[in-house]
């Protein structure tokens, strides 16, 4: 009967299907990183995790390998061709046409045509292999240092060595399962130089447009391999990485070296943006916690707000307004350079993951329920 049903729809393809049916050597589904994203009209209405502008185009990424772009400020969308169907988490462009998207299974995707077609540059298996290699190198280096180090420093080094072994074991165990861990954000300076950050301290750098990657995790102080959730460059040129357990890492030399900043907050930070003023950093995360620094993170001030909702991302409009978005439909607006924020909640209470300012004070939000075009307070237009 299955055959009959299929034949009805498939017409000429019937013969082939009938054969497939008689010999039910059923093949399992291909892995999600080998399954191209299904073309669908539903992408703009389903979970989107990040959105960015490149030229006149807005590009957004989301679940099931969805990458969609709009050339009319979000009114209509086209789905890009994507070779994977994992949940994508972050997107950034190094130039108007060259962009990168990251997501689960450690995938890095690359486009050279401003988002229309994408190719897979890196997956979680390769990323994990690199991480294992560099942990092994680190272990070798530390073991050597322990031999040479004075007795007083030895115990610290041994602690570090333990942590490294622990991390190595975890990486190997994960690799046995497959590409288990997601990348969570991406930032590119230009067509060649960029970083991706991710779960359990994943941190990789490329200087050749993603052709090759270098494990950059050893360059930051994150011995317990906490998640790294966000990366951005603030006005003035400093790079900032934030993550779990209040991590804030700042680089003032274009990413060659990072310094860990003391954070007044121990919880997770999910995102970081500049405010448009030189050396100002606004980091934010769990339960509406918002950290503001005007000196590249040497000192911090918590910005009080009663939103109580986790904040995911933010954007600065041309007129300097700062909008932060978060779970529970939170849309926070500052018109005074992050001194104070006014809280609004969307009536649908859907989580908002990213915001792109569009014409006037209007916003394009993406998140749990897909794309929403709203006013400055996050209230739906139309």
């Amino acid at each position, binding site marked *: 009967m299955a055959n009959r049903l299929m034949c009805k729809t498939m017409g000429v393809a019937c013969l082939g299907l009938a054969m497939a049916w008689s010999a039910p050597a059923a093949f399992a589904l291909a892995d999600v990183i080998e399954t191209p994203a*299904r073309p*669908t009209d*539903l992408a703009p209405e389903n979970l989107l995790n990040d959105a960015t502008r490149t030229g006149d185009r807005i590009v957004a990424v989301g679940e099931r390998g969805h990458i969609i772009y709009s050339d009319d400020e979000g009114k209509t969308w086209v789905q890009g061709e994507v070779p994977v169907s994992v949940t994508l988490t972050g997107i950034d462009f190094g130039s108007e046409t060259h962009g990168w998207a990251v997501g689960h299974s450690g995938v890095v995707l690359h486009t050279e045509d401003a988002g229309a077609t994408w190719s897979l540059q890196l997956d979680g298996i390769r990323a994990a292999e690199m991480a294992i290699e560099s942990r092994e190198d680190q272990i070798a280096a530390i073991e050597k240092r322990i031999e040479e180090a004075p007795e007083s420093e030895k115990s610290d080094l041994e602690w570090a060595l333990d942590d490294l072994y622990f991390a190595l074991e975890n990486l190997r165990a994960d690799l046995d399962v497959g590409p288990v861990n997601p990348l969570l954000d991406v930032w590119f300076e230009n067509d060649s130089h960029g970083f991706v950050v991710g779960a359990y301290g994943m941190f990789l750098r490329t200087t050749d447009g993603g052709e090759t990657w270098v494990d950059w995790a050893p360059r930051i102080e994150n011995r317990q391999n906490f998640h790294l959730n966000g990366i951005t460059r603030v006005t003035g040129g400093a790079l900032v990485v934030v993550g779990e357990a209040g991590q804030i890492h700042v680089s003032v030399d274009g990413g060659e070296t990072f310094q860990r900043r003391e954070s007044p907050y121990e919880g*997770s930070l999910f995102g970081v943006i500049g405010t448009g003023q030189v050396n100002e950093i606004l980091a934010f995360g769990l339960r509406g916690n918002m950290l503001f620094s005007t000196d590249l993170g040497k000192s911090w001030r918590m910005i009080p707000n009663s939103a109580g909702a986790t904040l995911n991302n933010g954007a600065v409009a041309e007129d300097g307004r700062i909008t932060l978005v978060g779970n529970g439909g939170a849309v926070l607006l500052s018109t005074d350079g992050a001194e104070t924020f006014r809280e609004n909640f969307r009536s649908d209470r859907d989580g908002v*993951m990213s915001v792109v300012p569009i014409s006037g004070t209007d916003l394009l939000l993406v998140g749990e329920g897909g794309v929403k075009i709203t006013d400055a307070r996050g209230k739906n237009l139309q």
Partner: protein
Amino acid sequence: MSNPKHDKGEHYLTTPKAEPFLERLIFNNRALILIAFAVLTLFLGYNAIKIQPDASFERMIPLEHPYIVNMLEHRDDLENLGNFVRIAVEAKEGDIFTQEYMETLKQITDEVFYLDGVDRSGLKSLWTSNVRWVEVTEQGFQGGTVIPDNYDGSRDSLERLRQNVLRSNEVGRLISDNFRSTIVYAPLYEKNPETGEALDYGEFSRQLEEKIREKYEAQNPNIKIHIVGFAKKVGDLIEGIGSIAWFAGITIVLTTLLLFWYSRSIAGTLVPVFTSIIAVFLQLGTLRLMGYGLDPYSVLVPFLVFAIGISHGVQIVNAMAVEAAKGFDSVTAARLAFRALYIPGMLALISDAFGFLTLIFIEIDVIRDLAVAAGIGVAFVILTNLVLHVLIMSYIGISQSGIRHVQNHGEKQDRKWRVMSYFAHPGVAPISLLIAVIGLGLGLYYKQNLKIGDLDRGAPELRADSRYNKDNAYIIDNYSTSADVLVVMVKTPKEQCTQYNVLRAMDALQWELQNTPGVQSSVSLADVSKMVTKALNEGNWKWYEISRNQTIINASIREAPAGLINTDCSLTPVLVFLEDHKAETLETVVERVEEFASANSTEEHRFLLAAGNSGVEAATNEVISSAKDKMLLLVYGVVSLLCFVTFRSIRAVLCIVIPLGLTSVLGEAIMAVSGIGIKVATLPVIALGVGIGVDYGIYIYSKLEKYLLEGKPLQEAYYETLRSTGKAVMFTGVTLGLGVVTWIFSPIKFQADMGFLLFFMFLWNMVGAIWLLPALARFLLRPDQMLAKARAAK
């Protein structure tokens, strides 16, 4: 030219020399036979009274269809998935955040808790402790019941309640989108776990009405209660069956009045009614002895049996009156009536019975039951009509007023019959045929839109404006939910139902389906896993994905709803919510699933169709659409064969069957136009319409043939036919129509549909026989050859 044998009403097929054997057998043992009938009636009547209603779900579905086989095989694993009631408590003014509303809701929750049949551990409302809000904090989760601690109905605690509701993730599920109603969700036990007794749907539904709806709507005038769920629907259906008793009474009274108007004889009225009722008792008693109960379908059969009994009884009363008018005594009149009628009568009744029996080939038990019930009924009608009825009349006789009525009335009507005999006129017949062809064309055109399955929104068994369907519409409009659910079962080896590959495959299927027109949304363990994985990662949507790490998957589904995973983790369902239950929707969705299943089923996970109401409907539709043509072929084949055996002429068969075909086509066109689909209820109507409809043609043709063989020209022969049987035939159509027309008022929608369609088919078949048959005869019959052949046979 006149043949004396024929004048006595003897049929040329019987041996011309002797009285028919059957006639001698019956009339020589009149008293004995009557006594035997009395005994049989007492015995079966006693059983008939004790017959029980039986609305078994299983009998209404095609048990042999692979979907249903799969569903029943895994019924225990899916048990509590579909059986629940949802009670929406609506605040007419204002919203739910008032002290009065919350107090009433609390009392209702308590009341439902104590209803028999409710699985108390699964009961959910704002007032139960399993409805919680949760929030991610730096330390992990924090949460609590939606009803705040120390709730006292104050403005402050109502405000805290409002905040908790917003955080609870239950808006759209337990709380309506507009905050004007909330739901009390009560899962039910199929069998009481303590006593093992099956849930009494009728009683449960009554309790919901009395203890919940009536009581609390009276107590708090600002609330309105809406109740939906399978149990409530079945309860309402059972209640609906009760109204049948009224219909039975009305039908009997109307028929009796009509019969008296027709015969003007007390005996000629009461005896057919009496014998037809006896046929009904004999039928019901036999059914009970065979182990059947009365379901919403077979409860209609007694009406048919009664109507068929009356309509054939009329023929006998008519024939006796005609004979008595010639001066024969009542026994001779009865004999002659019997002799004239037993062949066409038996033929007509046997084709009725065969028409019903073709339904046995449809693999749905209620339809088979219907076939059996109707077949038995007609078998008894043969006995009660041709034997009991004739014998009683042979004792009582027709009153003089009845005879006079036949004579007078007959003469008065002659002019009318004369006019109608022009249907056989060579000038009129082509016009009739042309009209018939146009009608056929129109019918074929409109019947293109004929759909399989139920077409109305909500519960199709009940009327669109029934209380249940209004409640259902309210809940669909105010909550994110659909009443049409297709369940795809995913079967895995034991303890393997949560493996990454299984979830991944379910997720792929779901996405395929969500991209299929007609699918609203879907839910499976994969969604739960993604959602909880996200929650475990501090509520960060970037983690909304099925983890490849089995430890994380296991953690993510630890709190999964019971219905999504069976006890030994070998079966997990994908629930697909559909926009409606139109046949196209179901077909498209089922096709996609079949494609996906055949491409992606492995040892690790096999995708099986189907459970859920939509799964059952999809299977039923398939059975019905494949059975429909088979059944039509069979019923027409059987009817044609019987006619051929009797009249030994293809031309005769065509004269009788073509009008039926026109009625069938027009009937389907009417179904298409009035939005009635082909379904369990209406499929039998087609067979019944043909099987019973053929009676008219048989009675008319047998007379027509008789007069033609006497050498009369066609129009004259038809005039004589109408004179002798036209009135009885027309009366038959009206009685049959009357027998079913009351169903139109049934609260059960499919009964109403059946009544409406049968009413049309019975009446229109009568019109077809009287109007179209003679026109066809004009073109098809060769009276000269018929005469020559009849002579040669002697």
